[in-house]
């Protein structure tokens, strides 16, 4: 039996579901959407709120911390925090525009893929850059602060350690490697778990539409 011969029957069969009343339909409009893109939008709003809170703390610390090294540290991270805020606003705006537009299926799939992939790449790169950057920057500023005499003098500690210094350096390198390598694999695993499978499915759907 061919599709054309059963066209009418199939259409009737698919048409036979119980219709919803207008009050049921109205109620549905009050519920929350559960699609991946809506979930991402909600998590971006949470990220934004957290980012604003962190930004305020950074500004407070940059202005009023007793140690100049920490004032510089938090002052620098105000810039990064503002950049993160701009990226979050850009993504939320992009999703907002996307949600209000009805595109053809293929373009719709491509847009969802682009938004999620962009978020995934940004998250991954930011984590990879910031973990070592924060540690090295904090250690360097701490060392300089100590040398200037307003805090613990690390150069004195280095002198006291003498030949054992290589053990401390090795310890720091090991710590950075574990944090770096661990952070790399954990972030990759976490982002893949959240969006990896979804992106693969979207890509295969786009490819399926493209193939003749």
């Amino acid at each position: 039996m061919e599709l054309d011969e059963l066209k009418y029957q199939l259409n009737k069969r698919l048409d036979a579901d119980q219709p919803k009343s207008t009050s049921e339909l109205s109620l549905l409009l009050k519920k929350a959407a559960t699609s991946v893109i809506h979930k991402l939008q909600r998590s971006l709003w949470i990220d934004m709120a957290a980012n604003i809170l962190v930004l305020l703390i950074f500004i407070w610390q940059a202005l009023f911390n007793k140690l100049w090294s920490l004032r510089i540290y938090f002052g620098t991270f105000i810039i990064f925090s503002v950049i993160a805020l701009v990226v979050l606003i850009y993504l939320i705006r992009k999703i907002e525009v996307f949600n209000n537009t009805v595109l053809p299926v293929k373009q719709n799939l491509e847009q969802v893929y682009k938004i999620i992939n962009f978020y995934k790449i940004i998250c991954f790169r930011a984590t990879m850059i910031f973990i070592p950057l924060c540690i090295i920057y904090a250690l360097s500023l701490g060392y300089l602060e100590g040398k200037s005499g307003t805090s613990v003098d690390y150069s004195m500690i280095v002198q006291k350690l003498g030949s054992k210094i290589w053990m401390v350096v090795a310890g720091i390198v090991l710590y950075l490697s574990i944090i770096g390598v661990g952070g790399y694999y954990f972030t990759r695993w976490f982002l893949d778990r959240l969006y990896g499978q979804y992106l693969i499915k979207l890509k295969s759907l786009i490819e399926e539409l493209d193939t003749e």
Partner: protein
Amino acid sequence: MPVEQEFITLLNKNQNIIHKVCAIYMDTLADKEDLFQEVTLQAWKSFATFRGESQFSTWLYRVALNTAITFFRKEKKQPQVINTEVFPEPVQQSPFLEEQTKAMYKAIAELSKIDKALVMLYIEDYSYHDIGEILGITPNNVAVKMIRLKSKLKESTQKHYQF
């Protein structure tokens, strides 16, 4: 008429479209309900951009298919079983035709999301040009896909009808 009221009225008239999409894309009643809710919400969110350039039904088809195609449930560990109990009630017809329709329905349930969209639009009598516009591909591509799809369905229906 307030916008929400206008939307509900239009949706009420065309809700069979969402029911059809849910029936073809989901295999449990709970999943169907979830998808119905998701399509309704998505249509409501984008209703402001509906300018009446196309028919509401065509616009709703786009929304429903976009939502259904990007709507993924967590993979179930057990193999997927086609649950015929959730199929919409059959229309009155001869037992032979009923069995054939059932077999065809099972064959459709096994198709990919894109193929399901093609079947859906095809049985709604959309032209290849319109199907191409909804899916974002060329009418030529639609024609090629339909030829392949029809023979795939024929084979698969025969398989289901034998057992």
